[in-house]
């Protein structure tokens, strides 16, 4: 049997919803294994800085990590698909591809090169369109807009002349407050709320077109994983699926509660991008997508598989549509 206790370095503080997933999964694995497997979840920076978790797990410096998959897109470009895919399928459809389609196969193949076993155990709901201090009435309002956002979504905004920037987490508040940047996209409302951005910005836009679902996972060094018996590995899977169900069922209502609390602040408004803006964004996304597919064959293959799978689910719901 494998180690009784493994160190899990979380990339999120466990007091927020994203990091709480690691602790929830720790409880599940403890139950499933009848107390024979235990997680010791470490806060970000406690063992290693958040952005070093993948490398540390890969080289065996730490046993396991709890991450947002998009963090490692600088190492594995395919992960842009799992972390933040613009105009992608809903969390439900994405989860179906992950667990009843080929989703895990593609990502595990990429992780094999790094001696890592990946368990995608947590999907967050759609993120938001971000906090802004000026109105966005058409895609041309993104021209010259200084906005904090990463990944493929940033490349979409670049098409309209936005200056997309990386501002370190601790400086976002100040940068937004003083106008060093005009807006920022951070996370889901539940997490955004505690950052206090609603105190210093005017608009909170929806939908989060740049990230329709995003995956969080448990990554384990394969040498550690191999020590567990087949039965124990199955227990990990069970705990993982239970955590996935928890993330999908518990989070949507929480987002609406968080938004309601934020809206109490005067001068802060929740808005939707208008249809023309969204159409233009989608058009630009299709250009970025074509570029990405041309240069990144593993992304292309996975993307096509995902969209084909999502189409089945859309078809089913269309057929069952009541009105």
């Amino acid at each position, binding site marked *: 049997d494998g180690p009784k206790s493994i160190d899990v370095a979380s990339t999120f*503080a*466990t*007091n*927020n919803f994203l990091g709480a997933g690691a602790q929830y999964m720790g409880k599940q694995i403890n139950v499933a294994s009848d107390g024979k497997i235990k997680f010791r979840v470490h*806060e*970000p*920076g*406690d*063992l*290693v*800085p*958040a*952005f*070093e978790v993948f*490398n*540390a797990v890969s*080289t*065996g*410096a*730490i046993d396991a990590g709890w991450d947002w998959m998009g963090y490692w897109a600088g190492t594995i470009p395919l992960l842009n698909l799992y972390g933040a895919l613009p105009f992608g399928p809903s969390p439900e459809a994405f989860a179906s591809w992950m667990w009843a389609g080929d989703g895990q196969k593609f990502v595990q193949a990429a992780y094999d090169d790094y001696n890592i076993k990946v368990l995608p155990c947590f999907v967050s709901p759609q993120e938001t369109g971000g906090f802004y201090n000026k109105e966005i009435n058409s895609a041309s309002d993104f021209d010259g807009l200084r906005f904090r956002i990463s990944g493929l979504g940033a490349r979409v905004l670049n098409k309209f002349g936005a200056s997309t920037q990386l*501002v*370190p*987490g*601790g*400086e976002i*508040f*100040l*940068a937004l*407050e*003083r*106008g*060093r940047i005009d807006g920022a996209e951070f996370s889901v409302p539940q997490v955004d*709320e*505690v*950052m*206090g951005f*609603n*105190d*210093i910005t005017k608009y909170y836009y929806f939908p989060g077109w740049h990230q329709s679902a995003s995956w969080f996972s448990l990554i384990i060094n394969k040498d550690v994983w191999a020590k567990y018996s087949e039965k124990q590995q199955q227990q990990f899977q069970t705990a993982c699926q239970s955590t996935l169900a928890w993330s999908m069922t518990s989070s949507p209502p929480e987002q609406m509660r968080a938004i309601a609390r934020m809206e109490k602040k005067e001068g802060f408004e929740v808005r939707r991008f208008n249809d023309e803006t969204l159409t233009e964004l989608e058009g630009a996304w299709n250009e970025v997508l074509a570029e990405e597919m041309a240069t990144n064959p593993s992304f292309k293959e996975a993307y096509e598989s995902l969209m084909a799978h999502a189409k089945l689910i859309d078809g089913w719901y269309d057929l069952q549509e009541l009105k």
Partner: protein
Amino acid sequence: MFIEYMLPILMVVCLLIGIFTGYPVAFVLGGLSIIFSLVADVPLPYLGIMGSRIFGGVVENWLYIAIPLFVFMGLMLEKSGVASRLLLTLQRLFGQVRGGLAISVALLGVVMAASTGIVGASVVMLGMLALPVMLKQNYKEEMALGVVAASGTLGILIPPSIMLVLMGSIMQVSVGDLFKAALIPGLMLGVLYIAFLLFMGWLKPEWMPLADPDDLDADTTPLPLALLRDLVGPVFLMVAVLGSIMMGIATPTEAAAIGALGAIFLAIFASKLDYATLRDVCYDTSKSTAMIVFIVVAATAFSLIFKKLGGDYLIMDIVDSIGLGPYGLLLSIMLMIFVLGFFLEWIEISYVVLPLLLPVISLLDFGMSTQATLVWFAILMAINLQTSFLTPPFGYALFYLKGVTDSSVKITTIYRSIIPYVLLQVTGLVLCIVFPAIVLWLPGLL
């Protein structure tokens, strides 16, 4: 209990012995982390984390970029002669007020704190600008050093503050509330510093002498004119640095580069910039930066192993064994954080200790809402952690200060200089415990 914790205790003992041999503090920290991991048989791959921590925490850390930039700015001001002319004029201005010079440093510290949250940068900048002025005026070394170190640390408490942002995310309370809550306590500490300086000026006037009248008379330009002439440069620089942050042109880190560039321009206008000056400034910047940053590099390795050997639980256990009512518990927690602050960084205390304490704290009944209790506790902890910058052996503010003073100033003098300020910090903390309104009034949580 002490058998179980023999290794972490031994580690601290070796640390103290090591640094008192006079061998560089950073190297003692780093070396002990390796020796103790071998003694305790910590698996080798685990030690691989040290490199990751150094890379992620120091090399890839934007906030530290401000350190060489502010050092550069200070040195350039000094070498360009702008600082020395300002010095002479400030002496004329403050020559008449006992402790006036030190008080203006404290005020400057508050202004900088409200614009940035980078302790290293504030201490370095204040040290570069004000320390030579005070020493030239024959201030007692301790008086001059203490006010720079203490005022420089205000930035971590007075909003905006990275520490409060981090605490907000760990405790799930609004950062906006924390910012509001920290404002009055932060300003109150500034007031306490100033009150202390006024008191010392009255008690020990010889420690903060007035400027020598002969020196003052050397310059015959009327004071208002001289002030105008010599303040223009530095004020231009202050406005450039702080103004660019306020106006949203630059983040605090970026503003440091504006300051550095501004200092180059001032040197050019004063016709003091030549190759040799530029070269010396670059070389000295490099040395001071290395000295500051390498302590952080080694300390991150030390605390990794200290925690691995159970050092954090040692301290928790001591608190547990005391166990009293809500106020008793609160006080023992504050005492524990104060002691931890001697050895660990605020960021590690926040991440390691805070989550362990949270469940306990939110259950304690101080006769206020849970939300208010959490905000109040966060601010008490923040004041406590701000103090950790000042407490030896590992007070970063002290090391930053050592980095910008010349080698004639002993680290032990610096340690002595902050004792009164640590006591003032504790006073501030006690005031916030006794009168929670100081914290909770502004965010409207009373």
